[in-house]
């Protein structure tokens, strides 16, 4: 999941309408764009879908960082296909957001001027080739944990986008695991790269689920509306439980000396990430925040003449066609 700390909007609609709306959600009905919905539901969803879409777009940058250095033709092709899928996810999520009344240009500008966020994970750098495997294994793995339940979310277009996205994400995760496995089973230098990637990306991956439940103030309303399906800590635990045996299989060490199986709970006990680091990254002080936003702004600004040119051409063409008729 790429949405963190989504603030639920308070809602001041007619209580009768609200009750009827909630009843539809409780009955498992899907809400469609033309249906009545509380303003808070609409705004919260725009924020959540937008943050997810922006994450897909900014997420192209850390992976794109390695496309030109991919070590084989096959790895280059796999990575290109993955990044292309992610841009595609961005596209259908922006379309889902448009059904809520916000245009793609508006929502893009909110990313570019910092009014909207993207997942904190993409503010970390990809420093060696194993990071590309680790991003697929851990980052896509964490994303899937949240996105699978969201296939059942109450908003129809979002739910349908998630169904499609999840299929591709699980494929990416398998490819990522395969890439890092190759490294973990490789030369001592390759194994060192794999361990280095895990060391740097483990805690940032745990942070993807958002702050601990006791500090997560926006969850209750979103859960009632079924736009958030599980709590942050539930999903984080599930992710840890799934990932630890995979790391063991790879012969890699999770960078948490206190990590151990708790027989009584039936889960792994693990160390929480450093939440002060998380809040710094959210505030803009992660290792890559400034560069990532600068890169997106540059792409947008440098591309203005292209967008203007194509639009001007489309208008000329329409005028000529009109004149000919």
């Amino acid at each position, binding site marked *: 999941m790429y949405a963190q700390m989504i603030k639920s909007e308070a809602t001041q609609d007619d209580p009768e309408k609200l009750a009827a709306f909630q009843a539809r959600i409780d009955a498992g009905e899907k809400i469609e764009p033309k249906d009545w919905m509380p303003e808070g539901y609409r705004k919260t969803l725009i924020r959540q879908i937008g943050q997810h879409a922006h994450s897909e777009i900014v997420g192209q940058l850390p992976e794109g960082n390695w496309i030109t250095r991919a070590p*084989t033709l096959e790895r280059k092709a796999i990575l290109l296909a993955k990044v292309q899928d992610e841009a595609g996810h961005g596209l259908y999520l922006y379309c889902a957001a448009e059904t809520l009344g916000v245009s793609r240009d508006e929502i893009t500008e909110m990313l570019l001027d910092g009014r909207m966020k993207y997942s904190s994970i993409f503010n970390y750098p990809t420093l060696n080739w194993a990071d590309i495997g680790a991003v697929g294994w851990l980052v896509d793995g964490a994303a899937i944990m949240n996105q699978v339940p969201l296939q059942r979310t109450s908003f129809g277009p979002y739910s349908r986008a998630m169904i499609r996205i999840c299929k591709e994400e699980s494929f990416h995760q398998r490819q990522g695991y395969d890439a890092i496995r190759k490294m973990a089973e490789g030369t001592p*230098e390759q194994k060192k790269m794999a361990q280095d990637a895990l060391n740097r990306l483990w805690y940032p991956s745990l942070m993807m689920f958002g702050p601990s439940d006791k500090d997560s103030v926006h969850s209750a309303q979103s859960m009632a509306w079924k736009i958030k399906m599980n709590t942050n800590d539930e999903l984080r635990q599930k992710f840890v439980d799934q990932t630890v045996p995979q790391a063991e299989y790879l012969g890699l060490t999770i960078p948490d000396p206190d990590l151990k199986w708790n027989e009584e709970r039936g889960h792994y006990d693990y160390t929480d990430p450093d939440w002060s680091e998380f809040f710094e990254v959210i505030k803009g002080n992660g290792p890559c925040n400034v560069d990532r936003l600068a890169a997106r702004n540059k792409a947008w600004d*440098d591309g203005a003449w292209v967008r203007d040119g194509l639009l001007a051409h489309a208008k000329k063409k329409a005028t000529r066609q009109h004149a000919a008729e």
Partner: protein
Amino acid sequence: MATPVNKEDAFSQFLLRMGDNTLILGHRVSEWCGHAPVLEEDIALANTALDLIGQTQMWLGLAAEVQGEGKSADDLAFLRDAWDFRNVLLCEVPNGDFGRTLMRQFLFDAWHSIQLGRLMKSSDERVAAIAEKASKEVAYHLERSADTVVGLGDGTEESHRRMQEALDYLWPYVGEMFQSDEADAEMVKAGIAPDPASLREEYDVLVSRILGDATLIIPDSSFAHKGGRTGAMHTEHLGHLLTQMQWLQRAYPGAKW
């Protein structure tokens, strides 16, 4: 540079020319990842690069097979030095702005689509099969790059100016695609590939039509830079591209990825 004397050497040369074109251009296009002017273009550029890299796997795979020295497509891509590359210079020039990237793509796609059409009739079944698969992808590349060149050429004053500048910069790199040498003559004799010069007329008709629609003017010069497809003299840019592309393979020899 030694001139190939027998059919095997000429065949290998031909396959390297095809595969190096797609490899180097695919690499250049992939440099755009995450930086395109609009999301649809990010997707389209990644898709084009992906097709070109896929075609590279087929051409260089066959080149390695024909050479019969136990090498793989990856060995050819990642372990040759600049003088062994046989791509035309057009493919290796830097991306420049989006306009130059798309103009380069169009000028290449136009040649590529005609070339693949001829190769589908190759006497070598393996070449014909690769050409058939690639031609479907390239038909789409050409449609898209031509549409974009027309849209931007006939867009705003600024987009027109940029596209004309791109064409002026790139036009001297067009002629090399149609130059022939002994290896080409050998391929013609064996019925494997057409004489490059024989594609020029069809190319000029296609390119003139599209650039006309784009309200752009083809420079009045037939001067052509050369040295890429023979390997005699690449641009200074290729070495930098290879430094990046080949780095992991060079730094960690023998590792499996």
